């Protein structure tokens, strides 16, 4: 057989020879053809040589084998057993290196070697195990398809219910034949045949799906929940049929038919399936909300003609026309017009943002007042909204470590339950029946006695009840359903978890480490104080002089002074004879007066006596500000203090983290005095100052070595190692792409209250997961022993199969319903009257149904304002 890989890193004939020789050295490889120009390596080998062995050899030789990823929608999975079944089906295929199947999203994410991984083979393998598979579509198409599939499943189960429940009800009534007037019209023998005729369509109509699915899996050596149903329903029906057809066979005779068990079992299981299908879709509502934000049509100006085209077909560089009330179809930059745009659905900001030439517009937001013409800069998968959607989808389709344990338990659960069922049968048959059975004993919640039931019938009943009451579904659904809801909720509030693992680890955080510049502070120096000392000199005049000499400077502090004057509306006069003394200050002639601006040393060197300002300068410095002296005509005129200002929510966020029992740490390259001043203002517990960028990760490691579970919040390239080192890396929205790629969580805005939201969302989700797992395991731990008859010796009652089926249906539905309670989750910052980021901005609970995340959603690479480049 031949296998073709795409190999990167081969650059010459020597590489070709190396790869060829290395592969030929493998036993079973007969020929290797290497094409350096295309990077293709075709290996002829025995089937016994796996693609993985070949790829490993290439990698060991120092080259890279190209990966491929395939995302498929899988229909028909209903429990964790199905997940295991589909994963097993795919894992053995040639070229597959990793498989993650998600029950919640109904997807299979398959990774493998490009050139070897074949879509058709993967699809065929899934189909052969009894499921439907197709390539996952994008965006709304996928949404429509999912709705269609769920709709079809709901219709199918509803039809099954319409068939199963009326018949089961009639069967139930007929079962009480001895009680009412029915004996007058229908003798017992006839009744059994009527019951047989009524149960047959229930078992082989609506119940057929369980037999088909379980057989498909079983013959390939895998089990799922359907097998429990099939054995339970099948055995009940079989015994009942034998007792009807051969009443003297000894199964309890014609009085002991279990048709009602088989029928009600089927009906309850189908009811459970229906309710599950109904509720499961609701856990992915967030992603639907996001997708619905994507406009379908764009009005494009091509060759001077306005044309309405699908938004997917817009190309970078297209000119797009936007009228009032229309949605922005893609990301872009305004080239003409003036308007205000409602970005609430992306940024959460309720006040519309003014847009003029040069402003950026975000796809999915809504134009309010004027007409705009903008140039598309990000289209299709590159738009901020698409990337947010992809991140949420990825998080929902991934698995948390806790889920892998649950999957393992649920996957082997069915086998364990069958084994237990066998032991229960043997135990009661050989020992329990003879020791404890009394003819007057009866079923739970039923007045009917077990009568003359023999050892076989009694043991079989308990054996079936064990099969039916056990519910791996609840165990399997406990984690993924909560994770899906949690990831969606996070996105709703501007927190993007990159995977389920990120949600789980976030809930365990005990220490939060913040980068200073751009994270706690705005990362942009600003004028904080203007202190004139010359008699009659106003602060504005002092600022005007300072800005005048700084307007030609490119120093960040100088830019801050010029910006400070602009913000205060101070007119800045022109400067002549400008001169800059690096590291000291600047000077020039302003309105005929000699103005100097710089540090104390610069004043001394220039012969200016600034001693009188020394104390105030020291005070500013102690507050973490940089004081700059201003002198006019050789006289000290005052001080302009510049500092990196705190973000509005920093202190509040840190206070809230303390309320949550978390420890806060700040890490910065700044000097200790400035760092401690900032830390004191926001209430940070511990400060690491004067830390070189390359040492930040070491500091995180130091905290971890003290046994702390650490989250790092940062924005800059220099934060990336620390973000990676921390158990949870939280990248803030205005940060660099590197930080966002490294982080486990992306906060779409730059508001530190979103760190609080992320931790609250993580904790709420994990609380829900633990509740679900507790109930699922508790249900099984209590239900199975009771069904096995442990209480019978004391109470004389056993659980009938139909009651067991009812409990089973209730358990998995209750897990899903409990998860849906997460929809009520609201972070502290967003609660009415809370202390959230929206205070004072008119943002109230519920005023943004479609809020979802993020400013300039800086997720898109390039084209993003980097507001907070860290400099420390």
């Amino acid at each position, binding site marked *: 057989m031949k296998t073709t890989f795409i190999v990167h890193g081969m650059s010459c004939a020597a590489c070709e020879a190396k790869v060829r020789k290395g592969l030929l050295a493998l*036993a*079973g490889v007969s020929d290797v053809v290497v094409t350096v120009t295309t990077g293709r390596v075709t290996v002829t080998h025995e*089937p016994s040589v796996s693609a993985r062995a070949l790829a490993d050899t290439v990698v060991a030789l120092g080259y890279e084998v190209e990966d491929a*990823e395939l995302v498929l929608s899988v229909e028909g999975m209903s429990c964790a057993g199905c997940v295991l079944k589909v994963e097993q089906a795919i894992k053995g295929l040639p070229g597959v290196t990793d498989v993650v199947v998600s029950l919640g999203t109904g997807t299979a994410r398959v990774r493998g070697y490009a050139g070897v991984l*074949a879509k058709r083979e993967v699809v065929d393998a899934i189909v052969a195990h009894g499921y439907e598979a197709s390539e996952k579509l994008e965006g709304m198409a996928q949404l429509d398809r999912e709705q269609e599939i769920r709709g079809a499943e709901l219709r199918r189960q509803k039809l099954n219910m319409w068939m199963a429940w009326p018949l089961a009800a009639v069967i139930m009534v007929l079962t009480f034949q001895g009680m009412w007037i029915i004996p007058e019209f229908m003798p017992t023998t006839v009744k059994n045949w009527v019951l047989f005729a009524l149960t047959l369509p229930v078992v082989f109509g609506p119940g057929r799906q369980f037999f088909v699915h379980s057989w498909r899996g079983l013959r390939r050596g895998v089990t799922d929940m359907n097998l429990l149903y099939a054995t339970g329903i099948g055995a009940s029906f079989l015994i009942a049929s034998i007792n009807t057809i051969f009443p003297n*066979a000894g*199964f309890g005779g014609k009085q002991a038919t279990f048709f009602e068990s088989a029928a009600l079992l089927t009906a309850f299981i189908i009811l459970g399936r229906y309710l599950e299908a109904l509720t499961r879709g609701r856990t992915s509502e967030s992603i639907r909300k996001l997708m619905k934000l994507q406009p379908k049509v764009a009005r494009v100006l091509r060759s001077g003609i306005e044309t309405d085209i699908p938004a997917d077909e817009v190309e970078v560089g297209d000119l797009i026309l936007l009228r009032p009330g229309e949605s922005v179809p893609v990301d872009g930059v305004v080239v003409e017009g003036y308007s205000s745009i409602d970005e609430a659905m992306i940024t959460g900001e309720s006040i519309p943002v003014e847009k003029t030439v040069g402003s950026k517009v975000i796809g999915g937001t809504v134009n309010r007042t004027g007409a705009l013409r903008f140039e598309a800069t990000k289209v299709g998968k590159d738009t901020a909204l698409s990337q947010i959607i992809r991140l949420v989808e990825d998080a929902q389709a991934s698995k948390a470590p806790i889920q892998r344990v649950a999957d393992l338990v649920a996957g082997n659960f069915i086998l364990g339950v069958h084994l237990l069922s066998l032991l229960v049968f043997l135990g009661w048959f050989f020992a329990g029946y003879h020791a404890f059975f009394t003819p007057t004993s009866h079923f739970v919640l039923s007045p009917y006695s077990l009568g003359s039931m*023999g050892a076989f019938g009694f043991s079989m009943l308990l054996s079936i009840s064990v099969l039916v009451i056990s519910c791996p579904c609840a165990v399997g659904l406990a984690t993924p359903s909560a994770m899906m809801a949690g990831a969606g909720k996070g996105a709703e509030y501007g927190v993007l978890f990159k995977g389920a693992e990120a949600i789980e680890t976030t809930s365990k955080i005990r220490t939060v480490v913040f980068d200073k510049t751009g994270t706690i502070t705005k990362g942009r120096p600003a004028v904080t104080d203007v202190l004139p000392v010359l008699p009659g000199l106003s602060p504005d005049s002092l600022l005007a002089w300072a800005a005048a000499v700084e307007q030609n400077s490119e120093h960040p502090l100088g830019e801050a002074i010029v910006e400070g004057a602009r913000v205060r509306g101070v007119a800045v006069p022109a400067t002549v004879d400008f001169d800059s003394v690096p590291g000291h200050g600047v000077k020039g002639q302003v309105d005929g007066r000699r103005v100097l601006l710089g540090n104390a040393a610069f004043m001394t060197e220039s012969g200016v006596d600034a001693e009188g300002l020394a104390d105030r300068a020291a005070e500013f410095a102690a507050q973490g500000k940089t004081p700059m002296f201003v002198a006019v005509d050789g006289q000290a005129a005052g001080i302009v203090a510049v500092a990196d200002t705190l973000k509005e929510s920093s202190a509040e966020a840190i206070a809230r983290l303390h309320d949550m029992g978390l420890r806060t740490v700040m890490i910065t390259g700044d000097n200790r005095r400035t760092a401690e001043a900032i830390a004191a203002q926001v209430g940070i517990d511990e400060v690491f100052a004067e830390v070189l960028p390359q040492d930040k990760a070491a500091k995180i490691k130091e905290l971890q070595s003290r046994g702390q579970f650490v989250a790092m919040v940062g924005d800059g390239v220099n934060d990336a190692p620390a973000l990676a080192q921390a158990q949870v890396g939280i990248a803030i929205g205005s940060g660099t792409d590197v930080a966002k790629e490294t982080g486990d969580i992306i906060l779409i805005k730059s508001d530190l209250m979103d760190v609080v939201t992320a931790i609250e969302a993580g904790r709420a989700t994990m609380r829900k997961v633990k509740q679900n797992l507790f109930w699922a395991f508790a249900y099984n731990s209590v239900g199975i022993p009771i069904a096995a008859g442990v209480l019978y010796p004391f109470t004389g009652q056993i659980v009938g199969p139909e009651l067991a089926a009812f409990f089973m249906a209730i358990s998995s539905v209750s897990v899903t319903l409990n998860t849906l309670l997460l929809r009520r989750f609201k972070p502290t910052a967003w609660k009415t009257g809370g202390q959230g980021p929206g205070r004072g901005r008119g943002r109230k609970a519920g005023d943004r149904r479609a809020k979802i995340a993020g400013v300039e959603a800086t997720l898109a690479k390039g084209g993003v304002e980097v507001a907070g480049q860290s400099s420390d």
Partner: protein
Amino acid sequence: MPDNHLTDPTDRAESPSARAGAEIAGAEGTGSEGGRLAAVVYGGTSFVAALVFWLVTTFVGSYPAVARYGGAAWVFVLFMIVLMPIVIPRVRNHRRRRRTECADGTCVID
């Protein structure tokens, strides 16, 4: 990673590797030699278990025929269900390992 790196399904259906894939897939089914071997193991073991049940109930105690035969059938079914998921993957893996060893020339031919 873009999907266009995936091999075209139609091409793969005709290619030698597709045939090899089909061989592997076949080995996983029940119709192949491996499948038959697995069936013999789980079927045989289940039959023996059912037979033991029948013998015990026949010669020990006074169980009616239906309990003996019905119980044996139930034991057979449950044993099959328990053994199939255990035996099939093990036989499949064993045969795969053996094929690899034979390709390396390290296996002992019976």
